[in-house]
């Protein structure tokens, strides 16, 4: 479980997040939604410790991340898997080497065991045949899968996913979403997904967090999302024509 308490973040005089208070649930897909530039990614980066909050704190199982010493942070980070928007795969390493990378840095297992674990992860995301290729030689969807494989290599307790569907066709987006959902259930991770893709939200979100006007504007489940009468939330989720049709269908029963 991850708790965020009174978190604010500013860059110089520009305040991006203001007094965020919430809890991210274990074994669930927690999706942070909001317009571009609303501060979703900044919130995620504060939670994983890439940014230091201006105020407030982030608690991992009750322990404040920013109060931890260097070794404790290092230990915790080995329990975190992250899929970046850009995938952040190492271009000079093959797909197999990318997945093996965290194992080589931290795991106490033989080379053969590492290879077996990496192969298992690649099989899990259904790209076991691509191990010898370099990231530049595979498609964007496959790169996402490699990113997921690398994120789960160390059997993480926390999974962060930044815009998993950006640049993907709708069909591949669904495959990646389903993979995130399956992995969350399989490893019982506290999964935090940052997205503005409503298809993804309607597909896999267990808990939804709407960031608007620097604040956590609304929080709830999928059924609550559609029923909510929050004006700003309504404007955001029904901005797309598909979602407008959903609303029309709902109103007509």
């Amino acid at each position, binding site marked *: 479980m991850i708790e965020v308490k009174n978190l604010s973040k500013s860059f110089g005089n520009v305040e991006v997040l203001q007094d965020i208070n919430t809890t991210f649930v274990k074994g669930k897909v927690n999706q942070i939604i909001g317009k571009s530039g609303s501060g979703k990614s900044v919130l995620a980066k504060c939670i994983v*410790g890439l940014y230091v909050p201006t105020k407030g704190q982030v608690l991992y199982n009750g322990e404040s991340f920013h109060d931890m010493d260097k070794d404790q942070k290092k*230990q915790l980070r080995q329990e*975190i898997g*992250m899929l970046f928007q850009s995938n*952040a795969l190492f271009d000079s390493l093959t797909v197999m080497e990318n997945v093996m990378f965290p194992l080589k840095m931290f795991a106490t297992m033989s080379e053969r065991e590492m290879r077996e674990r990496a192969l298992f992860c690649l099989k899990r995301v259904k790209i076991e045949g691509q191990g010898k290729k370099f990231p530049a030689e595979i498609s964007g969807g496959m790169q996402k899968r490699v990113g997921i494989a690398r994120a789960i290599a160390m059997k993480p307790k926390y999974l962060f996913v930044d815009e998993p569907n950006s640049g993907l066709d709708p069909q591949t987006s669904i495959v990646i979403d389903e993979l995130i959902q399956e992995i969350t259930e399989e490893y019982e991770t506290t999964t935090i997904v940052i997205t503005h893709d409503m298809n993804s939200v309607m597909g896999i979100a267990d808990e939804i967090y709407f960031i608007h006007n620097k604040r956590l504007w609304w929080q709830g489940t999928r059924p609550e999302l559609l029923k909510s009468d929050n004006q700003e939330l309504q404007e955001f989720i029904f901005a797309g024509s598909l979602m407008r049709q959903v609303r029309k269908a709902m109103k007509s029963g």
Partner: protein
Amino acid sequence: MSLLYHIGRYFMLLGEVFSKPERLSIYWKRTVEEMDLLGVKSLGIVSLLSLFMGAVITIQTKTNIDSPLIPQYVVGFTVRQSTILEFSPTIISLILAGKVGSTIAAEIGSMRVREQIDALDIMGVNSAGYLILPKIIATALINPFLIIISMFLSIFGGWLAGTLSGIISSSDYITGVQYDFDPYIVTYALIKTVVFAVIIATVSAYQGYYTTGGTREVGISSTKAVVYSDVVILIANYLLTQLLLL
């Protein structure tokens, strides 16, 4: 203030770089790869520059001291002294700052803007140590070899130009090269080389590591890496010369 900020942040980054590595074997493997990329692959340009540098020093020395009162071997002596004391360690290091420094800044800068450094940090890897330490060790180990090769080739280039153009006899040149040789000047040159190698690797890595933005900013970081490395090398050259030769 800005200068103090950068100096402070540079030394804080070095603190991170020299903290305990996660896996020594991985760091060593990366160091060997960097020695090939940053050192061995610079051998061609270093050899070419050194040969022509020696040739030009020979011709210029000869044309400038064309007096019957000055013995012919002075040409060889001058080539040796200027090559070992200054041209090979300093000029070649400045050239390497251009080639190696821009490579380091571009590589690390690209990793920064493509979130690969964030990925390392989130995994719990000391990204500064993992990326920069092997480059520092590699350049500090391989650059002295490059400079020694440069010294030989420069002196050889001088002999080649002198004898082929007929401006000095082979025996006069060799006499000059051997005349009053103090091995300390080689030690002095190699100390300078190691210091310059560390400057090139750390200043360039600093520029790359703190790149923000996109590909344009990576280019700007590469340019800054070369310019600042050159400036710091020139200042260090002056200080080391005072410290070691006076």
